[in-house]
C-alpha cells in the first residue's frame, strides 16, 4: 500500500512540474515586458540581461508626458467602444434572426467578410476616405473596425441564440408580449453571458487592430498599437518606452479576457463547430 501511495505522490509531483514548465513560456514574455518597462534605457541594453534591479517608473511617466499616451489610450477606447456598441446593436437582432429563421445566405456574407484579407478592404476605403476627407477621423476608423467586429459578434451570437428554447418565447407571446418585447425582455437577458463574451472579444479585436489604424489614423486619432509601433520608426529603438507602453496597452485587454475566459473558449468553440 505504502509503495502505491509513494508512486502516486511521485506521479503527481511530476505532473505539477510539467504543468509549471508548460506555463513558463506564456508567462515569461509578459514578465519580460513589464521588466523592460521598469528598467532604465541603459539597463535595457546591458549584457548579461539584468533580472534583479532597482525598478523605475520613469518610463511610464515619459510615455504619458512626452508621448501623450493618454490621448492614444482614449482614441483606442473611443473607437473600440463605438465599434463594439454598434456591432451589438446591429448584430444581436441579426444573429437572433439567423438562428431562428435559418438564414444561411446571411451567414455566407459573414463568412466572406471573415475570409477576405483586410488589405482588400483597406485600399478601397483609403481611396474613399481620402476623397471624402475622412482620413484621421473616428468615423473612418470605427467604420473599418466594424468590418471585423460586426461579423464576429453575429458569428458568436448565432450559437448562443440557438441554445435558447423557443417555448419561452411562445409562452411570453401567449401572455401578450409583442415579438419585439419578447426578444428584448425574454431572449436578450437569457443570452447575457454570450453578449458579454461577444462584446469583450469584439473590444479586444478592435483594441488590437493595427493594419487599418496604420493607414487611416493620423495625429488626432492614432490608436495604441500604432503609437507603440512608432517607438521604433525613428531609427533608434526606445526599448524602455516600448516596455512601458506595451504593458499599458496589454493590461486592459488581459484583464477583460481574464474575467470572461471560460465563455471566450465556449464562444469560439461553439462558433467553430457549427455546420
Amino acid at each position, binding site marked *: 500500500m505504502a509503495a502505491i501511495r509513494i508512486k502516486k505522490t511521485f506521479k503527481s509531483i511530476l505532473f505539477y512540474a510539467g504543468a509549471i514548465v508548460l506555463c513558463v513560456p506564456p*508567462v515569461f514574455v509578459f514578465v519580460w515586458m513589464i521588466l523592460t518597462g521598469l528598467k532604465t534605457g541603459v539597463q535595457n541594453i546591458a549584457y548579461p540581461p539584468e533580472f534583479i534591479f532597482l525598478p523605475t517608473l520613469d518610463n511610464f511617466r515619459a510615455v504619458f508626458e512626452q508621448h501623450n499616451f493618454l490621448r492614444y489610450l482614449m482614441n483606442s477606447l473611443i473607437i473600440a467602444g463605438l465599434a463594439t456598441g454598434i456591432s451589438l446593436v446591429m448584430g444581436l*437582432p441579426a444573429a*437572433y*434572426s439567423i438562428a431562428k429563421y435559418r438564414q444561411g445566405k446571411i451567414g455566407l456574407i459573414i463568412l466572406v467578410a471573415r475570409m477576405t484579407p483586410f488589405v482588400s478592404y483597406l485600399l478601397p476605403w483609403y*481611396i474613399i476616405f481620402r476623397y471624402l476627407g475622412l482620413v484621421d477621423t473616428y468615423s473612418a476608423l470605427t467604420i473599418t473596425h466594424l468590418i471585423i467586429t460586426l461579423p464576429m459578434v453575429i458569428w458568436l451570437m448565432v450559437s448562443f441564440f440557438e441554445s435558447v428554447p423557443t417555448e419561452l418565447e411562445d409562452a411570453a407571446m401567449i401572455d401578450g408580449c409583442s415579438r419585439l418585447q419578447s426578444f428584448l425582455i425574454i431572449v436578450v437577458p437569457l443570452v447575457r453571458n454570450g453578449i458579454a463574451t461577444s462584446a469583450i472579444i469584439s473590444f479586444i479585436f478592435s483594441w488590437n487592430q493595427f493594419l487599418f489604424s496604420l493607414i487611416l489614423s493620423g495625429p488626432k486619432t492614432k490608436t495604441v498599437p500604432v503609437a507603440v509601433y512608432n517607438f521604433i520608426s525613428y531609427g533608434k529603438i526606445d526599448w524602455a518606452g516600448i516596455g512601458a507602453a506595451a504593458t499599458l496597452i496589454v493590461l486592459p485587454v488581459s484583464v477583460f479576457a481574464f474575467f470572461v475566459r471560460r465563455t471566450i473558449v465556449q464562444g469560439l468553440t461553439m462558433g467553430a463547430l457549427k455546420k
Partner: protein
Amino acid sequence: MKTAFRALTHFIDRRQAFAYPAPAVATLFLIVIIPIVFNLYLAFNKWTIGLGQPRFIGLGNFLELLSDERVLNGVKVMIYFSGLSLSLEMVLGLLIAVYFNRQFKGSEAVQAIYILPFAATPVAVALIWRIMLNPEIGVLNYLLRSVGLPGSLWVSSPQTVIPALVMVDVWKWTPMITLIVLAGLKSLPHEPYEAARVDGASALQIFWYITLPLIRPVLIAALMLRSLDNLKEFDIIYTITQGGPGIASETLYLYSYMVGFSFFKAGYGSALMVVVFLIVLVFNVVMNRMRLSAQEL
C-alpha cells in the same frame, strides 16, 4: 408620433425575419461587399494612386504576377510560415490539452494564464519578442548560452527568420488551441474509455484509437478558425521584420500590402489580394469537406 412608433413596432413584429437582420446586412453590404467589388474592379485595371485614372487592362495584372519573382517568393514564404506554424500549433495544442485533461488543483490558474497570449495586442507583444530575439544582447540568446548552447541569429538571418517568426506565432496562438481542444476533450463520452480500459488498452492506444478520432471535428474546426487569421498574418511579421532580411519573410499577403501602400500600385496590389483571398477560400473549402466527413464518422 405615437402612432408612427406603434406602426413601426408593428411592422418590425410582422416582418421579423426581414427587419431584424436588415440593418446589419445593409451595413455589411456597404462596408464589406462594395469594397470587395471595388477591389475586384481594380484588379483588372492599371492604376497608380495619384497618377491619372484606372485603365482597363483585362488580365494584365494577373499575367504580370506570374512572372513576378516576389510573388513566387511570397507564396513560398506563406507556405513555409503557415504550414509550419499551423501544424506546430495544432500538434502542441492537442498534446498540451491532453496533458491538462484531468482534474487538478490549479486548473483555473492554467486557464487564466493560457488566455493571456490570445488577448494580448499582437503589435505590443511582437515588439517585446523583437527585443528578446536580439542576437547580441537579447534574453533568449543569453538563456541559451547560459545552458551551454550556441545563440541563434533569429530574425537577423534569412535562414532562421521564418522559424523565429513561427515561434512567436506559436507562442501567441497555441494556448488558444489548447483551451478549445481541452473544452472538446471534457465533453467527450466516457463509455469508450471505460471499455478500452477493461480491454487493457495502453495510454498510447487510447489516445490514438479513441481520443484522436473523437476529437477530430474539434481539431479541424480549430484549424479552420486559426487558418483564417494565420494565412493573413500581418502584425507579427510587419512589426518584427517588415518582410526582411531582404524579402526572406515577405509573405504574399505582406507583399500585397507593400505593392498597395508603399508603391501605390492599386491595380496590381488588388490582383495580389484577390489571389490571397482565393488561397484562403480554397484552404477553407477543403478543410470544411474534411470536417463534415469527420463529423459523419
